[in-house]
């Protein structure tokens, strides 16, 4: 892919902005639409400068109505365009769920492949930024339990760029979940680097004791936990799923079988969370390799707390290490 920039350090927000800019440059059918994506550049500045460069036809400030935004994007895709929708915050995607569940996820199937919908729905999700209620929901379970959608969530700057490019290029609808608390973290970005396809997990850290299976906002927490675990004598691997649907059973099971112990970590509430699927399928496929049950470290089963209390809700290093300690080492 040709790109707007040479290797440099960038924040995840800048990487996403570059991915959108490069996609708009390379493919005239790509159109961005959403609330405040124009002059403002989005409340997180992910679309900064796009309307200035490409004009309102390519990057559109819509009226304030999420079902209308996604429904309009569906019609645009039906005509052959490749819309990229921005939902302003996780909880503000809920008005669009009927359009997402009943049309975006079903249109290709409903029409025997005649009407694919190559739509990317970008949703900043999760907490940790001191947002007031409705601004911090980890809402991935609604999407991962809906057949017909792909669900992608980057945990690094490089993946933010690469996976967004891959998602926009995908002929299937992708719910692209952006861990908003990682927006400002900087790292090396080489837009020219080859892009991993959607659907592949990656081992961020090798280890010999057990593996932490995680994604998106919890990746840095798990890496920190792995560091801290050394003091306890545990050498933890960290697996970054990156794509939740389609799930990379092969990579995940290979790692789990080799280590025999796994903890799934995400900040969404545990009950009915995506971690349940991960634990269940890993157990189904790796049962006799497991020395201990696959444990889950997640947010509590409560509505997202007010900012001053959110740190109690979010899985932290200690809570992860407590779970690791329960992996029945005595066996």
């Amino acid at each position, binding site marked *: 892919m040709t790109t707007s920039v040479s290797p440099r350090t960038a924040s995840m927000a800048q990487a996403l902005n570059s991915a959108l800019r490069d996609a708009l440059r390379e493919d005239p059918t790509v159109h961005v639409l959403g609330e405040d994506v124009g002059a403002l550049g989005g409340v997180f500045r992910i679309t900064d400068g796009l309307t200035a460069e490409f004009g309102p036809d390519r990057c559109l400030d819509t*009226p304030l*109505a999420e079902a209308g935004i996604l429904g309009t994007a569906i019609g645009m895709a039906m*005509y052959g365009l490749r819309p990229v929708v921005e939902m302003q915050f996780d909880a503000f995607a809920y008005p669009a769920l*009927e359009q997402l569940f009943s049309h975006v996820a079903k*249109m290709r199937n409903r029409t025997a492949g*005649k*009407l694919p919908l190559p739509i990317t729905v970008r949703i900043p999700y999760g907490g940790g930024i001191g947002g007031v209620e409705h601004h911090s929901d980890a809402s991935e379970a609604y999407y991962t339990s809906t057949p017909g959608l792909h669900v992608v969530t980057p945990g690094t700057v490089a993946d933010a760029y690469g996976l967004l490019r891959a998602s926009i290029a995908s002929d*299937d609808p992708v719910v692209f979940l952006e861990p908003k608390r990682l927006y400002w973290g900087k790292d090396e970005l080489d837009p020219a680097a080859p892009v991993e396809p959607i659907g592949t997990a990656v081992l961020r850290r090798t280890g010999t004791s057990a593996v932490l299976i995680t994604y998106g906002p919890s990746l840095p927490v798990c890496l920190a936990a792995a560091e801290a675990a050394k003091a306890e004598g545990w050498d933890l691997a960290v697996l970054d799923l990156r794509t939740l649907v*389609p799930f990379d059973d092969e990579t995940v099971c290979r790692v789990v079988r080799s280590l025999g112990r796994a903890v799934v970590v995400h900040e969404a509430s545990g009950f009915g969370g995506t971690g349940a699927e991960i634990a269940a399928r890993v157990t189904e496929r790796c049962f006799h390799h497991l020395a201990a049950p696959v444990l889950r470290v997640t947010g509590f089963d409560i509505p997202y707390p007010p900012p001053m209390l959110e740190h109690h809700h979010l899985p932290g290093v200690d809570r992860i290490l407590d779970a690791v300690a329960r992996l029945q080492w005595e066996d």
Partner: protein
Amino acid sequence: MTVLDHRHRTPVPGWMPGATAPRTDPAPLLPDPSPVRLLGTPALEKYEPALLRELYRRLVVGRRYNQQATTLTKQGRLAVYPASTGQEACQVAAALALGEQDWLFPSYRDTLAVVSRGVDPLEALTLLRGSAHTGYDPRASRTAPLCTPLATQAPHAVGLAHAARLRGEPVVALAMLGDGGTSEGDFHEALNFAAVLGAPVVFLVQNNGYAISVPLSAQSAAPSLAHKAVGYGMPGRLVDGNDAPAVHAVLTEAVERARTGGGPTLVEALTYRVEAHTNADDATRYRDEPEVAAWREHDPILLMEHALRELGVLDDDLAQEAADEAEALAARMRAEFHADPELDPMSLFAHVYAEPTAQLREQAAQLAEELAAEAEVSEQ
């Protein structure tokens, strides 16, 4: 040039301090107090006899289509059928008002409009037969899938029309909705998007008096549904939905307005759902026969036939031709639907994604095994 720049030339934020007048004049956006009618008026004479005959022919064929489809439900050949009996004027006028390149966005009740556009009845009815979700090729027919979640097709029509406009292609999208559908949030959001974008789309609301059992009086307190248009800044038109030439004229004007950059229009067609909501519904629970009878007399075909004969553009031969064509269609439907559909269980996995995922391949293999096992058993 960008299509949307005009939005940025309009006064921002739209009101100035101490402003004394609305941003635009509402008067032209309001519907006339009484519905547009042509049948039985002198204005009808200005109409192409060929067009009037075409409308008549389609009405007669359409009525027969509705009857045959209803019969097929009784024979178990259709799972369910929401008839447009009594609404044929809206159905055929909608189809006729659109050009080849235009798109139709029908609801579950609008299969007649789809067929009247040229889609084969067998393909148009797979959803209601139960054999496939969508039986026709939406791209080839420029006809969106029959939409069941109410009003959700409205924003699709806006998006498609907007996309065509961005491409500089003179395509108009026509979305068909019911009176009940206007209560849904998606209706509101779609009309607002259409007006703000200036999208070439026409919203046709067939006000047939009921949403299943709920009468319009419990659905809306508005003077008319067409009065909703001014709230979006688009014209609202009120038309007698059983007057085929009137519906055709109003829709054609709206379609041309859209095509020439005039933006969207909301059309409310006053009609009546003569049959129950579907064959599965029992209308006697919520409405009286006299009400239905009154509307049966205001039948779109009777009104049309009467007016055209008076005008001298319809004679017995033409009427017979139409009747014959209707019978031919009914016969074809009976034949086609008598045969059982071909079903492929493995198709369940074929179009969920561009490429089946590893998980779907596993699941497809499982089903294939099960089917093979069943086959073995039944062979023994």
